[in-house]
């Protein structure tokens, strides 16, 4: 990572640190947030398409290091 990029990243990070107040959003933003969350949860449903019980039970490895 270049020095400039690192500093830009760090600055963003420090800004976030200073600004830790929770967002007090408008009604519109809340709606948008709920919609986003629903889409994300749907995407999560998709990655769990197999039979969960079977998948988890079958996940057996030999011990490694």
């Amino acid at each position, binding site marked *: 990572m270049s020095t400039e990029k690192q500093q830009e990243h760090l600055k963003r990070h420090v800004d976030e640190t200073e600004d830790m107040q929770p967002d007090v959003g408008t009604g519109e933003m809340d709606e948008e947030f709920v919609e986003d969350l629903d889409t994300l*949860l749907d995407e999560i449903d998709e990655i*769990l398409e*197999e039979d*969960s019980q079977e998948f988890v039970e*079958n996940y057996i490895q030999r011990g490694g290091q």
Partner: protein
Amino acid sequence: MKRRIYGLETEFGIIWTPDVAHRKTLTVQNVVMYLFREIVAGRMYPDVFLENGARFYQDIGCHPEYATPECDDVAELVAHDKAGERIITRLASTAERRMRNDGFYGKISIFKNNLDTPGNTYGCHENYLMERHVDFRQLASQLIPFFVTRQVFAGAGKIKPSHRGYYAISQRAEHIREEISIGTTTARGIINTRDEPHADREKYRRLHVIVGDSNMSEFSTFLKVGTTGIILRMIEDNFIQQRFALRNPVKAIRDISDDVTCKHPIELQNGKRLSAVELQWQYLECAKRYLEQAESDPTTTQIMARWEYVLTCLESDPMQLDRELDWVIKWKWLQTYLSKRGFEWDAPQVKHLDLKYHNVRQEESLYYTLENRSEVERIVKNEQIRHAEHFPPERTRAKFRGKFIKKVNEGKILCGVNWSYIQLYEPYQILYLSTDPFKPEFDEASRTIYSI
């Protein structure tokens, strides 16, 4: 030691799920053979170095393992660690195509975690090149309390049986049985004594760390390796004067892992009781004093800022780190998912999702679903990871190894390669050794290889 060589080795978990219609099963061994077929081309063993200087091989217990090339910068290491995930993902797609040609229809899942369902473990090992002069017992005594407590930001999180409180910080904590040991498959220690520097033994030792979890979060990897590097500098310079010795480190590592509030007090040998976060603050304060008088660099400044930010958040509410730390990101999204979908913590869907957090194949992964929707903090850019898939680090010995591998692969020249040597067989009959991992070129070897 201001400039240091860092490396990460990751053992991946792997499983094959046949399509419902076909139901032809394959053993893990067979799947791993398919995975390696593309890159081992005619070799006896699945063990190769790649053009980016990394090593990819089959390790104990049939785990494919990716060892990054030598990096001298922690952010660069993060990119190379992620490059390993991308490489194994590509190999899995190719392997699936070959398998279909052979009549096996299904999907390979690859997990970067440390536990299977019954509780077998496999590791992520960190490697740090260190100055040889440091007394090992002193090194161990100053590192043990650090390794016991750093899981509060380096842990990958796991679901545990409901009677024990649903969720724990670390995957590896329960598998650590000793304070110091040489074992990596049984009686694993907080400090592992393996010492193969792949460099001048008079000057260097290699600290091989097996106590940590595998991380998906770039932020967790960056902080885990970065803070450890700073602690090692202080130990090499004999700067740490406080005594943090714990009364029972093996018990403490489990107790800390079991407490998601990060407030559990652990007992020191001097009778004091401190939480993991309080102990980490002591190390951080010590590092600040150290860096007032020692040379710093932009990466170190970043590590320090993030370390302080993380401890500040952990002190008030760990959930504030739900974009940064693996164990918190996963915890937040497991909780959100189960509450929105009406599952209990012990539902198979929740365990399934825990596993899927660690899937390195992006379309199948909870972590990457979140990353693609900008729900997690990054350390490197995708372009840096793509670069690291094909090109070695510029400032270490890996640079020449990578160029060498590219050349011999193109020319189909037989060779032997390891971390510290390269060998050309007939008709060249040459062996080159490099005992200085900070030196990017093997002078004589460069001349020969470019003349081929």
